[in-house]
């Protein structure tokens, strides 16, 4: 190899090496820059919020230090008992309003040192005080209590005010006079000033957003409007169990939980975004700014693709040059101790290098296959760990609640045993313990016969929360609690059950009749110092709401069903409340869900703890369960979930197989290189060479197509698939809870079913014709104000809806309509012929004034497993497609208008019920109609090329043949385009383009030959190389195209 050759080769090598970091650097540079910008926006807004609060606090101090204002307050305080005297109030209002240029407020409320309203410019607050239980629970009430306790100004949580019926943010400030707390002033700030800071999207592009959110017991609530979802303030809510598709917390969650940072994340709509998040001190809210990653990278994607293309070209050129430049290497190796030296001697360097590369490729391919084996295992383990940690966390919290109850029981027992308490003191103690511990619903103390007083047989007191507040009951007057003949479980637990074992005894939860609460009882028998003489039994009743809230947290990716079982297998908690209310057992659940293996598991397995799998016979589906026992009570915290939840996602598997394929490709290339340079490839015949090189590449391409087909890219929408009535109920319950949280109308449900009998693609308009039957259930009581009807909001033409039948069963009327509609459907043909389409039929109820959720009538279908195609008539066909699955789902429609109804399109209002049909392209059609002709034309081109090279055809004849083939392929392409409506370039079109390009190159070659280029050595070499590697180039380009599109 000459110096010039070496120089060219090494320059190319260096350039390609430089392109690799450049490719990654461009992306990271842009990402870093955007992150920095987002962080500065976030910090700037946080600072502005801080300044905004400072400004208000300064203004409050300034205004309420004015002598005139203080005098007016004095006047108000003096008239506390004469609130009807309006003059002082009017004067105060006018006075404070005159300072509005300093203090831009909406409402002003004054409280006295006991927490009673002495002035309010909002009539809703007049007459309220902290004695009012409802008011004391509001954010203003909570803030007021904090001020009274700490004598320090406080910023109440920005929240929905139940009295003003709007979001409100109060700043509460104590005012002192003569070394005493005089009054507390609460100023409701003008929240528009806050929104002016947060709803400013300058610098956030088209998709960017800035949100403020706060943590509430149920999850995270967004406090300002959501730009891209068109949601108004306090309408977007993420439940505590929410996690995105990547299992990561969304930026808003991170901010609200107190984290600070920035990075590449998935937002609450599962959109890959760049975001920056932090906590806003004093307001106790999170702030996050974000922008979609797609938007960030959009402008630079051309550069990235260009670099990648250049890199690939360079690699190919280097490969070709290597073959071209280097003469066959001398063989022979030195022996003995000079072996290593000989290995890397000038003569053998390339040979050794090629062997090393070949060995590496072997190692890589084995490693890749092994990685695939461990990948699945690893994903399953990681998912199991995640689930386990969620469950263990909840278990820890439940155990903490129960432990606290035990502490209360034992501490109270200890104190009673220590001193003989009179009745009044005992009740006071019990009440104190109840008010000190929120999770305690009630406490009972039952003395043993004659233990309280020698002349009094029984003495028992029970204090519990009832509708009237904390109420005391005399147990000894209610019944003889020492009698075992009493059958009612509620009474038994007080005394007799507590005595069964010495020390703490836990009893299964039940509805306690006096408080009407679902409680678990913790009983403790206590004795005189000797430990022999029984004094009595203390029972603490734990409000099970506190426990079940913890169970609800175990929602693996919102897809599992968490539950709590008693030792006997009776449901203490299940999202379907019927299970708990009817005291159903896990065996009954197993029977209902046709899971005999679950029954066997429960009956035969002792000490259930960990993961178990079983089969749902009805759905023919593998299911999993996780159990963990609660230490104190022996209850079982568990979760049921689908096995698919543990599998790696399709995209991961597709990427994995593609990686393996590239390793195979690497192996083939390295083998070929080794063969060319070391094992005298040149000695083979032309046909053998072509065949040997092309065959492995062709196999690679076929495998790539198979992977792309098997793990198809499916652009399905974000939805909640509903297969079981439990899932439907869980979904509706969640929405009802959210509606309560964000103060929307609580949704009403109407059961709806569908059977599609025809489905046809309309080519002329880009849509789909659908006909079938739809039916609904209307209850006389629940739906009495609702007019029956159904809307297909997406339908492009007038929907033909004909009532077919109306049947009444009990109080329920079932109405069935025959429908025919045309849906404007944009077929996603970009991936043709490896495309999948999801046809969604959305249903709505026409009464927009009510928050109605249509739920699927799942009982109407024999099998809800999507692969059994529920909701479709037998033998339904769609031309050119195979029907893969059908199912019901809920989608948030996020309309761009309110349609004139204020709350329409917010968090729960009008969630569209969808019937989704997934169809897959019949690939054989595409192969026969398009791929086969393209291949034949390409082969014909190749034949003419070879004939021309062998001088069997002259230039004119060759060009005429190329032109004829070009016309054929153009007609074929045109006919395909007429059938497809898509505006983007389809996958198959790249093969047409490749054919055009080949014809162009070969025509140019004929022209250059005529122009005399054939006499030049480099041109002859190039033409010879192209002839040899004709099919390899075609297949390689096809592999690159396929990888780019399907990776």
């Amino acid at each position, binding site marked *: 190899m000459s110096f010039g050759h070496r120089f060219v080769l*090494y320059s190319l090598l260096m350039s390609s090496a430089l392109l690799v970091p450049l490719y990654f650097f461009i992306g990271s540079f842009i990402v870093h820059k955007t992150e920095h910008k987002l962080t500065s926006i976030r910090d700037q807004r946080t600072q502005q919020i801080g300044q905004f609060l400072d400004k208000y606090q300064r203004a409050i101090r300034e205004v309420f230090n004015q002598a005139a204002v203080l005098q007016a307050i004095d006047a108000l305080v003096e008239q506390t008992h004469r609130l009807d005297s309006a003059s002082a109030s009017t004067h105060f209002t006018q006075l404070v309003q005159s300072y509005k240029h300093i203090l831009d407020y909406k409402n002003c409320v004054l409280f006295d040192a006991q927490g009673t309203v002495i002035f309010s410019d909002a009539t809703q607050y007049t007459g309220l005080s902290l004695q009012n239980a409802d008011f004391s629970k509001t954010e203003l009430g909570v803030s007021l209590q904090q001020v009274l306790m700490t*004598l320090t100004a406080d910023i109440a949580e920005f929240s929905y005010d139940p009295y003003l019926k709007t979001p409100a943010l109060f700043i509460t400030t*104590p005012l*002192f006079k003569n070394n005493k707390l005089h009054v507390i002033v609460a100023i409701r700030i003008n929240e528009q000033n806050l929104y002016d800071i947060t709803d400013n999207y300058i610098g956030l592009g088209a998709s960017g957003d800035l949100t403020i959110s706060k943590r509430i017991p149920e999850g995270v609530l967004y406090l300002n409007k959501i730009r891209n979802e068109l949601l108004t303030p306090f309408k977007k809510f993420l439940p505590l169990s929410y996690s995105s598709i990547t299992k990561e917390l969304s930026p808003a969650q991170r901010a609200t939980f107190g984290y600070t940072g920035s990075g590449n994340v998935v937002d609450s709509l599962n959109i890959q975004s760049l975001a920056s998040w932090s*906590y806003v*001190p004093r307001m*106790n809210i999170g702030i996050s700014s974000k922008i979609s990653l797609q938007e960030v990278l959009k402008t630079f994607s051309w550069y990235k693709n260009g670099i990648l293309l250049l890199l690939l070209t360079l690699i190919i050129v280097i490969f070709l040059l290597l073959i071209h430049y280097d003469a066959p290497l001398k063989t022979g190796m030195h022996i003995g101790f000079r072996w290593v030296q000989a290995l890397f001697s000038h003569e053998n360097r390339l040979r050794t290098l090629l062997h090393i590369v070949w060995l590496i490729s072997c190692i890589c391919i084995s490693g890749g296959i092994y990685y695939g084996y461990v990948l699945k295992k690893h994903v399953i383990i990681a998912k199991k760990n995640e689930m386990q940690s969620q469950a263990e966390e909840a278990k820890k919290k439940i155990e903490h609640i129960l432990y606290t109850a035990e502490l*209360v029981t034992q501490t109270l027992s200890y*104190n009673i045993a220590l*001193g003989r308490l009179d009745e009044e003191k005992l009740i006071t103690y019990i009440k104190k313990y109840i008010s000190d511990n929120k999770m305690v619903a009630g406490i009972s103390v039952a003395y043993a016969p004659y233990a309280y007083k020698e002349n009094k047989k029984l003495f028992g007191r029970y204090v519990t929360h009832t509708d009237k507040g904390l109420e005391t009951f005399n147990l000894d007057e209610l019944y003889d609690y020492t009698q075992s003949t009493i059958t009612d479980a509620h009474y038994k637990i007080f005394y007799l059950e507590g005595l069964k074992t010495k020390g703490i005894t836990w009893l299964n939860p039940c509805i306690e009749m006096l408080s009407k609460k679902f409680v678990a009882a913790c009983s403790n028998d206590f004795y005189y110092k000797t430990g022999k003489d029984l004094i009595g039994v203390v029972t603490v009743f734990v409000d099970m709401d506190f426990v079940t809230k913890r169970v609800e947290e175990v929602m693996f990716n919102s897809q599992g069903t968490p539950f709590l079982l008693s030792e006997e297998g009776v449901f203490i908690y299940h999202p379907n409340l019927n299970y708990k209310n009817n005291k159903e057992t896990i065996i009954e659940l197993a029977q209902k869900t046709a899971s005999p293996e679950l029954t066997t598991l429960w009956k035969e397995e002792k000490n259930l703890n960990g993961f178990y799998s079983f089969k749902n016979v009805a759905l023919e589906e593998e299911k999993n369960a996780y159990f963990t026992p609660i230490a104190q009570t022996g209850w079982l915290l568990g979760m049921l979930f689908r096995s698919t939840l543990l599998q790696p996602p399709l995209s991961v598997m597709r990427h994995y197989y593609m990686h393996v394929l590239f390793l195979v490709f690497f192996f083939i290339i390295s083998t070929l290189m080794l063969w060319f340079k070391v094992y005298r490839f040149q000695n083979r015949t032309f046909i053998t060479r072509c065949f040997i090189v092309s065959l492995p590449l062709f196999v690679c391409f076929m495998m790539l197509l198979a992977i792309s087909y098997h793990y198809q890219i499916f652009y399905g929408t974000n939805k909640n698939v509903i297969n079981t009535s439990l899932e439907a109920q869980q979904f509706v319950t969640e929405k009802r809870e959210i509606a309560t949280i964000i103060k929307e109308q609580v949704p009403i449900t109407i059961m709806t079913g569908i059977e599609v009998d025809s489905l046809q693609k309309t080519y002329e308009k880009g849509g789909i014709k659908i006909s079938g039957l739809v039916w609904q259930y209307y209850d006389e009581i629940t739906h009495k104000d609702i007019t029956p009807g159904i809307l297909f909001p997406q339908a492009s033409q007038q929907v033909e809806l004909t009532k077919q039948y109306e049947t009444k069963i009990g109080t329920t009327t079932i109405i069935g309509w025959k429908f025919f509609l045309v849906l404007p459907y944009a077929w996603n043909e970009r991936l043709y012929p490896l495309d999948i389409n999801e046809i969604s039929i959305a249903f709505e109820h026409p009464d927009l004034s009510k928050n109605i959720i249509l739920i699927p009538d799942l009982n109407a279908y024999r099998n809800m497993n999507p692969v059994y195609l529920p909701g479709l008539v037998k033998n339904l066909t769609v031309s050119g497609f195979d029907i893969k699955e059908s199912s019901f789902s809920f989608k948030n429609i996020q309309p761009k208008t309110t349609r004139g109804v204020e709350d329409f399109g917010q968090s729960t209002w009008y969630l569209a019920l969808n019937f989704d049909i997934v169809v897959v392209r019949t690939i054989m059609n595409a192969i026969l109609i398009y791929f086969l002709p393209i291949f034949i034309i390409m082969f014909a081109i190749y034949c003419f090329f070879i004939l021309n090279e062998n001088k069997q055809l002259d230039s004119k004849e060759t060009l005429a043949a190329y032109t004829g083939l070009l016309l054929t392929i153009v007609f074929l392409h045109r006919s395909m385009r007429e059938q497809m409506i898509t505006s983007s370039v389809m996958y198959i079109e790249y093969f047409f383009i490749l054919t055009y390009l080949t014809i162009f190159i070969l025509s140019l070659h004929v022209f250059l030959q005529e122009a005399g280029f054939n006499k030049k050595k480099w041109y002859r070499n190039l033409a010879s190389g192209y002839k040899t590697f004709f099919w390899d180039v075609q297949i390689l380009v096809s592999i690159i195209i396929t990888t780019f599109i399907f990776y």
Partner: protein
Amino acid sequence: MKKIFWIIAGFFALGLIITIIWKYTFWFKAPIKVGILHSQTGPLAVNEKRLINAELLAIDEINAQGGIHGRKLQPIIVDGASNEFTFAKEALRLVTKEKVDVIIGCWSSASRKRVKDVVEKYNNLLLYPVIYEGLEESPNIIYFGGTPNQTIIPAITWCFNNIGKRFFLIGTDFLSSRATHKMLELHIAALGGEIVGSHYIKLKDKVLPEDIQNIIALKPDVIVNKLNGDSNISFFEELLRAGITSEQIPTISLRISQADFERFPLKSTIGTYVLFNYAAESLYHFNTLFIKNYKKKYGQQARVGDATQSAYSALHMWAQAYQKSNSAKPQDLIPMLKTIVYQSPSGIIYIAENQHCWQDVILSKLAYNGDLIEIWKSSRNVYPEVYPAYLTKNEWNEFLINLYESWGKRWSAP
């Protein structure tokens, strides 16, 4: 060909060396010195040793994360010997001889007052992690402990609303107890309650049976305990001996750490109320992590308290501020510190303009087995009010000067 090969190989080798130097650059950088100034001897040592442990744990964690700008933290531990003058002497040595970048330490207010003079004179920084009486603002101190409105004021208000109106005050004859008692006088009077009596003892002294008899005779509803160190043991023992349980006369202790209870006779302390800015039993993720790491380093029996976690959080927050400002000078570092929101074991905390910490207030009651049951908790972080509003800042300062003068220019009774 050979030359080109060696040139390329040379480039690669050079790149590798530069990368290694860049990555492990802290090998060649001087460490950042952190002065740890606590009593390792004397009556307060028992409290302060736990703080040293927490501070060393924080330093280990910061170093494990790569230090600050690649520089490791080097702790320099000195003994304040429970004496305010020793604290001053050692602080001076740390600043002038050891050239530390920050001092974390002190327990009693007297020692803090002495160290304050040193750090202000030499423009250094003190991180003070203990609940205190307030009435102080220094540009060279960051106060991580609770101020009166985060501690005694809510505690007394709760007792007044829930237990009774007659209070007895007992405390060590320290600046902290005297100032606190002054605040309580004003606060209880404002609430409409009554202080039936008060009693002070020296730091090393014990509470005597007659002291308890005097308290019983005055029939208070609540005893407010502001005793420091080992005096608490005698106090609770004598109460028990006199047959007084917390159900008869409840005690609210303002200077006892959660970890201290293990040293007291359990029977005597059951039912005692304590007020902290931290709940050691909390299942908050960062608390369980802190306790797990603390126990891993110091053994399963090791217990943590309010000041322990404050000391731990203080160093972490300071390290984050140093990382951001890249300077140890108070004027550069403190503005950065004020922008940090830290997830401490007690919850989310941050620093206010007056260089004190916004934090939660938690009132708890001791259960029969030594665990604490939460009784009341503020609904969110409370602003640290340094000067209670009953008197003006000048009036409070005047009160302090008078105390200082009356003790012969000392911050504790002679």
